[in-house]
């Protein structure tokens, strides 16, 4: 299996050889920033295209098929349109917060994006409380959404933002607890260690019942966390026009849009990292030949494949289930997911203490 740290090490040595350490570090920062932002934009565009195609297929349509082969350039064209659109000034709003909000949202999702291990050695932020950091930075997005709703000076935006805040904060609990279940099982918060320890079987299979329950709870809570259907209350078109981003136009709206799709990617990526082994190939203990063949597939492909499956499942949710009312939404979280999660946590502790896992 190719280790990408060879490449990063080579770049590091090269820069340190020709430049002073300060400049070398600075240039590395810039390089990594450019890489992250490029990947961010490309993944967001790809996801918008995939979302439209998947949605169309669930509705017996073909989806975008005019711009480029199979409509592949459709989201690029949309992005270009968004870039050249005017950002309209709204009267009687809080200018500073109004302009700040999209950047808060996008910064939160870029930070969370940086924590994800994309492949063996392809990891930007990796330290001993990685998963904790990831949860923390991904929750900053709520602040941005609340700011957007508040500063728009629009009742629909405010209601949308408040709903969104209530929803995201409640479901953060479920996400945190289901991640905690896996952290107990892995015995580490470092993402690279979590992935490495799944070399002999993914946590979804090794942790049997509690891991499976945690996985299902994570899926539901993750869908709610990304404000997607069936939990798209903040953007209820018929009641709130577009929720917290009603007043935004041009690229500021584009930022919300990008962050929404990237949050979908991040939630799916975290799910695949924690439960499906991240970039770790499918290994079955004892089958050495099989394991070797699986190792030939590059690790980023494994990661992206698993993430794509998770994304498809979330889109499947979106286009299958009817929307929840706000009281149903909060009841689902506080009366069902949270108790299940707490019991599941105890179950996992018992399993880890008595070592009755695989």
């Amino acid at each position, binding site marked *: 299996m190719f280790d990408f740290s060879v490449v990063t090490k080579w770049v590091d040595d090269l820069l340190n050889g020709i430049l002073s350490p300060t400049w070398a570090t600075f240039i590395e920062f810039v390089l990594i920033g450019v890489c992250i932002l490029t990947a961010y934009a490309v993944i967001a565009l790809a996801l918008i295209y995939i979302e439209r195609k*998947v949605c*169309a*297929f*669930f*509705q*017996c*349509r*073909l989806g975008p*098929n005019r711009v480029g082969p199979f409509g592949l350039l459709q989201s690029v064209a949309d992005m270009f349109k968004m870039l050249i659109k005017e950002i309209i000034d709204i009267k009687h709003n809080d200018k500073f917060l109004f302009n700040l909000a999209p950047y808060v949202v996008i910064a939160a999702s870029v930070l969370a994006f940086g924590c994800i291990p994309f492949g063996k050695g392809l990891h930007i932020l990796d330290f001993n409380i990685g998963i904790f950091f990831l949860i923390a930075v991904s929750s900053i997005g709520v602040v941005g959404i609340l700011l957007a709703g508040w500063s728009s000076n629009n009742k629909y935006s405010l209601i949308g933002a408040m709903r969104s805040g209530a929803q995201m904060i409640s479901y953060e609990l479920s996400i945190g607890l289901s991640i905690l279940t896996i952290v107990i099982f892995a015995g580490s918060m470092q993402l690279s260690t979590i992935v490495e320890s799944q070399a002999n079987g993914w946590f979804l299979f090794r942790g049997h019942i509690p891991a499976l329950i945690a996985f299902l709870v994570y899926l539901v809570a993750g869908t709610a966390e990304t404000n997607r259907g069936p939990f798209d209350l903040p953007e209820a078109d018929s009641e709130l026009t577009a929720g917290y981003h009603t007043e935004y136009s041009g690229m500021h709206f584009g930022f919300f849009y990008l962050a929404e799709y990237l949050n979908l990617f991040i939630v799916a990526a975290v799910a695949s990292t924690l439960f499906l082994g991240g970039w770790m190939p499918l290994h079955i203990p004892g089958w050495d030949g099989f394991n070797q063949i699986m190792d030939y597939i590059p690790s980023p492909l494994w990661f992206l494949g698993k993430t794509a499956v998770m994304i498809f499942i979330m889109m*499947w*949710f979106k*286009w*299958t*289930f009817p929307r929840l009312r706000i009281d149903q939404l909060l009841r689902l979280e506080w009366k*069902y997911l949270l108790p299940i999660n707490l019991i599941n946590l105890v179950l996992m502790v018992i399993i880890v203490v008595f070592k009755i896992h695989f």
Partner: protein
Amino acid sequence: MNITTYLKGFFNGLWSLLVGMKTTLRIFFRKKTTECYPENRGTLKMFDRFRGELTLIHNENNEHKCIACGICELNCPNHTIRVVSEKITDADGKTTRVLQRYEYDLGSCMFCELCTRTCPHGALAFTPTFENAVYTRSKLVLKLNREGSKLANKK
């Protein structure tokens, strides 16, 4: 709420969600209904009851069944149809009305089918052609009886 109803409700809900997901997945792989219109112009077939434009049915001998009675013209709510006829007296002294021009203004037709339903001889029909766009309104006024056509003999 006791514990059994709680659990029963939970599992029933979960089951119904799974059934829903099965249904949507089946639809996901179903044949798509979208028509890629300009590309499939050659093969595209509209459904039979589609009302594209009015035609006067002609058979292979360039004969139609219109007796120029003008019932369609009277029935048309929009005055879309104008039947121009002349009276011809034949050798036996019998006077018949013969169709000269059957004018139809596609631009003011509302496709109600009152003309085809009331035609006593079944001479009219709507065809499923739909590429009717032209650049001027005058081109929408069509003459439906073909050049040199005549009334089909009654059998």
